[in-house]
C-alpha cells in the first residue's frame, strides 16, 4: 500500500526515533514487563508502522465487504444492513422450563434461539439410562423424544424463528425431532432455518462428546449435509466449531487452524460422496470463541474469512461466491469467567462481545456473569443480552464496516494469524489429515500443552486475572442469586418418557428401527430412516442404540 521510497523514509525515521526518542526513555524507565504477550502467549511489538504491512495488497488481501477474499466481511452492508442475531444459548431441566426461558429471552429482544442439551442427550441416552444418573437437566435441557421437542417449542412458531442446536453425536436424531416438531406445527420443512452443530471432529479433538467411531460419525455428518441441501435449503447443517477447542485450552491460532482443518475435512468428505461443492458449501457455518485478547480475536475472525475463501476457491474450485463465505457464530469465553467477584464478568463479556462484533460476527451469545458457579439465572442472562443490545444500539461501533481495517497492528496481526494457522493446517495434512491427527493424539497434546502454559502464566503472575491472582477481596457470600431448577423436573420428564413408550404404536416403531438398522449396515443416507423413527416416537436412546450396535462405540486414549 506504500511505495518503496516512502517505506525507506519511514524506516530511516523509525531508526532515528528509536535512537533519539525511545532509547533515552527506556534507559530512564524500562517498560513494565520484559515481554508483552497475548492471551495465546504471542509476543506483541511495541509499535506497528507501515513497515509491518509493507506487502499488504488492498485488493488482493482485503478487498471490499461482500467480495473475495471477504476479509472485511461477507456482506456488502454488514451490521448496517442487519444486526447480528442475538442468540442466547439456553437450556436446563425440563422442556417446560427451557421453553419458558426461551419465551423470556424472546420477549426481551433476543432474535434467535439456541438450545443447550444435558449430557445424557448429548451422548444419545434417554434420561432413564443407568449412565444418566445425576445428570438430568444439569447442563442443558433433557430431550428424550419428539414429545419433549414439541413441548420445548410450544407456542413458538418454527417458521418465525431460527434455532441453533448444540448437538453433535446424535445431531441427526435431534434434528429429525426438530423437523418432526415443525411438521406437527404445520410448518413446511423447507421454511425451517437454523443450525445443528454436528461437528463431530471437534468432539474427538476437544469437547469429547462423541458416540460412534470417526468413520461412521463422518458418514452421519455427510448424510445430514446431503439431506439438508435437498430438503432444508435454509438450514445450516454444520457449525464447524473452534469454541470448544479454545475452551479446552488452545491458543487463538490453534483454535482457528484446527477448526478450518476440520472444515476442509468435511468439504473433502462431501465432495468424495459426490456432492458438488457449490451445492452445499454455503450451508456450512462456523463457530468461534471470543476470548479476552481484543485485537488477537479480531485478527482471528478476519484471518478466518480470508483463509476459508482462498481455500474454497483454490483447493475446491468453488464458483459460487457464497461457497467462499465464512459465516460464524461467536460465544464469549466461558473459561475466562471468574468465580471470584462474579459481577466483574459483565465487563469481561462486554469486551469479548465487542471484539466479536468488530470481527464481523453473524450471531452472538454473551455469557452470563454467574457461569463459573452454575447455569445462568434469568437475571444474569438478561444482563448478558442487554450487553449485546448496548453494543448494537449505543456504542456506534457498527456505523461503519470493519472499522479496524488499515490499522498497522490489526493488519499485521491478521497476516500473522493467517500464516501461523496455515502452518498448522499443513502440519495436520502432513500427518495424513484430521482423522489421523486425532488418532495419534496430535490435537490433544497441542491443546493440553497450551492449557498448562496458560495456567502456569497465571500462577506465576505473568498473567493477571482480576480478582483471582490480584485485587482479591474477602467474599463471604456470593453476591448474586443462582438458578434454581424444578426439583420435580426429572420425575415429570420420566413420566412423559414412560407414557409415550406405552402409548405409541410399538409395532410401527419396531419396523422403523429395523429399517434403520438395515440401512445403517448399507450405505444409504440415514436421515429419512431416522426421521421415520422419530415420527413414530422412537426415543433418542432407542434410535441411537440401533446405530451403536451397527457402528460400535468410540473411546479415546487419554492423553495428559
Amino acid at each position, binding site marked *: 500500500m506504500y511505495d518503496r521510497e516512502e517505506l525507506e523514509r519511514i524506516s530511516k525515521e523509525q531508526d532515528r526515533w528509536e535512537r533519539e526518542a525511545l532509547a533515552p526513555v527506556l534507559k530512564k524507565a524500562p517498560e513494565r514487563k520484559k515481554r508483552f504477550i497475548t492471551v495465546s502467549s504471542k509476543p506483541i511489538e511495541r509499535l506497528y508502522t507501515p513497515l509491518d504491512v509493507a506487502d499488504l495488497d488492498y485488493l488482493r488481501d482485503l478487498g471490499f465487504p461482500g467480495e473475495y477474499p471477504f476479509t472485511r466481511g461477507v456482506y456488502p452492508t454488514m451490521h448496517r444492513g442487519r444486526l447480528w442475531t442475538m442468540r442466547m444459548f439456553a437450556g436446563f431441566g425440563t422442556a417446560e422450563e427451557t421453553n419458558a426461558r426461551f419465551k423470556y429471552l424472546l420477549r426481551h429482544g433476543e432474535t434467535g434461539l439456541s438450545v443447550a442439551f444435558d449430557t445424557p442427550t448429548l451422548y444419545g441416552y434417554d434420561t432413564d439410562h443407568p449412565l444418566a444418573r445425576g*445428570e438430568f437437566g*444439569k447442563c442443558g435441557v433433557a430431550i428424550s423424544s419428539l414429545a419433549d421437542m414439541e413441548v420445548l417449542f410450544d407456542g413458538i412458531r418454527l417458521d418465525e424463528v431460527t434455532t441453533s442446536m448444540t448437538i453433535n453425536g446424535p445431531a441427526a436424531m435431534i434434528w429429525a425431532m426438530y423437523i418432526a416438531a415443525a411438521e406437527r406445527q404445520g410448518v413446511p420443512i423447507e421454511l425451517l432455518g437454523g443450525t445443528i452443530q454436528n461437528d463431530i471432529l471437534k468432539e474427538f479433538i476437544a469437547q469429547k*462428546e462423541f458416540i460412534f467411531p470417526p468413520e461412521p460419525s463422518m458418514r452421519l455428518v455427510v448424510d445430514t449435509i446431503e439431506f439438508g441441501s435437498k430438503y432444508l435449503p435454509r438450514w445450516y447443517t454444520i457449525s464447524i466449531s473452534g469454541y470448544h477447542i479454545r475452551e*479446552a485450552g488452545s491458543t487463538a491460532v490453534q483454535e482457528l487452524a484446527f477448526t478450518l482443518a476440520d472444515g476442509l475435512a468435511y468439504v473433502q468428505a462431501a465432495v468424495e460422496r459426490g456432492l458438488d461443492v457449490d451445492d452445499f458449501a454455503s450451508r456450512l457455518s462456523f463457530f468461534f470463541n471470543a476470548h479476552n485478547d481484543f485485537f488477537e480475536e479480531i485478527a482471528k475472525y478476519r484471518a478466518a474469512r480470508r483463509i476459508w475463501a482462498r481455500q474454497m476457491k483454490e483447493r475446491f474450485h468453488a464458483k459460487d461466491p457464497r461457497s467462499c463465505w465464512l459465516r460464524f457464530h461467536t460465544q464469549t469465553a466461558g*473459561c475466562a469467567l471468574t468465580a471470584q467477584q462474579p459481577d466483574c464478568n459483565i465487563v469481561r463479556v462486554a469486551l469479548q462481545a465487542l471484539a466479536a462484533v468488530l470481527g464481523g460476527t453473524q450471531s452472538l451469545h454473551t455469557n452470563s456473569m454467574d457461569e463459573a458457579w452454575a447455569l445462568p439465572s434469568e437475571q444474569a442472562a438478561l444482563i448478558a443480552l442487554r450487553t449485546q443490545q448496548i453494543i448494537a444500539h449505543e456504542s456506534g461501533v457498527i456505523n461503519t464496516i470493519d472499522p479496524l481495517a488499515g490499522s498497522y497492528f490489526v493488519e499485521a496481526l491478521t497476516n500473522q494469524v493467517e500464516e501461523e494457522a496455515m502452518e498448522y493446517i499443513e502440519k495436520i495434512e502432513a500427518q495424513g489429515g484430521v482423522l489421523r491427527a486425532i488418532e495419534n493424539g496430535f490435537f490433544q497434546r497441542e491443546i493440553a500443552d497450551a492449557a498448562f502454559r496458560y495456567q502456569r502464566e497465571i500462577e506465576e503472575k505473568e498473567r493477571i486475572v482480576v480478582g483471582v491472582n490480584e485485587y482479591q477481596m474477602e467474599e463471604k457470600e456470593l453476591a448474586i442469586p443462582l438458578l434454581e431448577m424444578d426439583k420435580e423436573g426429572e420425575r415429570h420428564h420420566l413420566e412423559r418418557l414412560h407414557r409415550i413408550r406405552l402409548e405409541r404404536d410399538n409395532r410401527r416403531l419396531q419396523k422403523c428401527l429395523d429399517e434403520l438398522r438395515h440401512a445403517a449396515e448399507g450405505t444409504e443416507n440415514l436421515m429419512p430412516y431416522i426421521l421415520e423413527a422419530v415420527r413414530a416416537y422412537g426415543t433418542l436412546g432407542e434410535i441411537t442404540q440401533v446405530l451403536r450396535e451397527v457402528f460400535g462405540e468410540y473411546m479415546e486414549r487419554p492423553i495428559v
Partner: protein
Amino acid sequence: MEERKIRVLIAKPGLDGHDRGAKVVARALRDAGMEVIYTGLRQTPEMIVNSAIQEDVDAIGLSCLSGAHMYLFPRVMELLKEKGVEDILVMGGGIIPNEDIPKLKEAGIAAIFTPGASTEEIVEFIRETVKRRPLG
C-alpha cells in the same frame, strides 16, 4: 530408603467431557513429584473406585463440570466405604456452587477446589493431608 511417592488418581466421573482442569491438575501433580494416574473420560463411580484400589492410590481427585457432582461424588464415597478403603483422600473440583460444598464435605470429600484455585494450593493440600495420615 527412598520415600514412596504420593500416588493420585485423577478421575472424570459421569458424562462430562470437560477435561481441561483434570489434565492441568494431573500435570501439575506430576511436576510436583507425585505419581498420577488419569482415568480418562466417562467413568462410573464403580470404575473409579476399582481403579483407585488397583492402583493403590493415596488420593483421588474428582473433576466434574456438568453439575452432576451431587450424585457422583457422594456415590464414590459410598463405594469406597463399601470396599473398606475410605482412608483414601478424596478431593473434588469443577463448577460447584457454594451451597453444595458443606454437603459434599459431610459425605466425606476432604476439599473442593472451584475455578480460580491454583495448582499449588492443590499440591500443598495433598502433601499436607496425605503426610498426616497413618502409614498403611
